[in-house]
């Protein structure tokens, strides 16, 4: 995947659960375009109207806690979010985001270092995050080699697809 991701930050506080990221009443929608229309609706009803492709989400601890709904990751991807940076993540959301090829980056104290609208430059490989608005530099936790390989493949589906094809050839 791209080594450097640059984008404008939307900021959220602690314990943003997947019901706020994607309300349960819309779970019967399945096409990503429809799912994108309700991104972050429970936390910020104006989000969908103002988000632009490549924007970033910055959050405090436990972002994506609660339900295992993959819609929460699908909606952010379909809304064009380039990366999610948080002090920590709910574990199922973390897997879902990585599986879809969204860099979910664990960076302790990121929330307190970023304000809404700050321009961030994120080096996915090295974990260096530069807040170009304030000049602050932060260091994210590195991805494990396996997670990095999922992101490099644009998500786990293409990775598994390749493995299944290889097994088919044997």
């Amino acid at each position, binding site marked *: 995947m791209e080594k450097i991701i640059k984008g404008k930050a939307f900021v959220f506080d*602690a*314990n943003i*659960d997947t*019901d*706020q990221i994607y*309300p*349960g*009443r819309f*779970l*019967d*929608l*399945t096409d990503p375009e429809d799912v994108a229309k309700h991104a972050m609706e*429970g*936390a910020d009803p104006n989000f969908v109207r103002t988000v632009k492709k490549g924007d970033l989400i910055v959050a405090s*601890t*436990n972002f994506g*806690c*609660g*339900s*295992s*709904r*993959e*819609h929460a*990751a*699908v909606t952010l991807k379909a809304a064009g979010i380039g990366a999610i940076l948080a002090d*920590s*993540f*709910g*574990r*199922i959301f973390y*897997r*879902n985001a990585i*599986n*879809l090829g969204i860099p979910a980056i664990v960076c302790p104290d990121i929330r307190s270092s970023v304000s809404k609208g700050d321009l961030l430059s994120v080096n996915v490989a090295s974990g260096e995050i530069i807040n170009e608005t304030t000049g602050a530099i932060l260091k994210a936790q590195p991805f*494990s080699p*396996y997670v990095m390989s999922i992101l490099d493949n644009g*998500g*786990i*589906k293409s990775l*598994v*697809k390749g*493995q*299944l*094809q290889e097994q088919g050839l044997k």
Partner: protein
Amino acid sequence: MHAIEKILARAAGMKAVKTGEIINCKVDLAGINDLYLQTIRSFFEMGGNRVSDPGKVIVFLDHYAPASTIAQADNQKQFREFCWDQGIDLLMDIDQGVCHQVLADKGMSYPGEVIVITDSHATTHGAFGAFGTGVGATDLAIILATGQLWFRVPEIIRINLEGGLKKGVYSKDIALHIIGTLGADYGVYRAVEFTGPVLRDLGISERMALCNMTTEMGAKTAYIQPDEITTSFLKNKMKQDYTVFTTDSGYAYFAEHTFDVSNLKPQVAAPHSVDNVADVVKYAGKPINQAFLGTCTGGRTEDLAVAAAILKGKHINPRTRFIIVPASKSVFLEAMNRGYIQALVEAGATFVTPGCAACLGTHQGILAPGETCITSSSRNFPGRMGHGKAEIYVASPAAVAAAALEGKIVDPSDYVK
């Protein structure tokens, strides 16, 4: 090694595993529910053709039971057709109930098993000494295609429960107290094991509630070492043998906490966070519009028994509605045989189809703006059960039933014989 690590090592075909290691495990039972049509889509997007082991896959139509919209009906239709096409015989249709309770009822949750379900509350199966964990649609699709999934071996936290519970205090109160003390993110990426003498007083139903609620502190899985309570529960339900793994003496936990529950009072998680926990009396007198009893957290026969004992021969407050969703068909039938349903309906309760119902705000008891609900389910996130301006208080089944009776939050201890 810890028993959880031994389960994972067995599933990974390894002699030993260590904390932090990424391993690939064979999954003994993979469950999909009707919110996760994306599972089928991801399976085909990955080039899947035939499900690798259809006998290890179970599909639950529980979240939308029965369908309330055309879109829900269409999702369920596609699931049924997928099961028929793929030879998945374990199709639990809309009559069966919530996935976790169905597995318990059918003896499909047992010691040493690796259970992966597209549902965060899969931690519930720790009550049986299984490794249960929740995943999203695409992870489950990988299991459909390969029979396996990768896991990071988690750090393990021991929570030791000492003392004895007072009248009117339940494992739900213990869970809420622990989450309130340690925080909603304390268990993230980690596993939680419960130990201690209190477990001897907790039957399977209460253990399931306890393990279920570890999801609300972020836990990957929960665990209770199987004992005679576990084996006697499974005795008449299971045909096959199972292995009970035990933790090596001297195993070093990531952290250990002891809670003496002897003086614990009924608890409540107030809006809008599961760790915003206090004694229920702090909110006594708060009027409620809806009381909600049920789901995988608090809708078992024992929970309906508590509610029936409080309400038998009485009637709920006229300004309150009391919605009850039995966790499963078996629970519904057993409660019926014991007369709980009769007593509760006469007391003014509204029963809905066994399943998830209003817990996740899709149907069967949605809240209007400005309304207040007390629930025996697990979550009070903003908008969880309907409008974002509704308020949800999470408490024990006894607290829910007592609140339905009075039309306001009360201390349930005064209502339990």
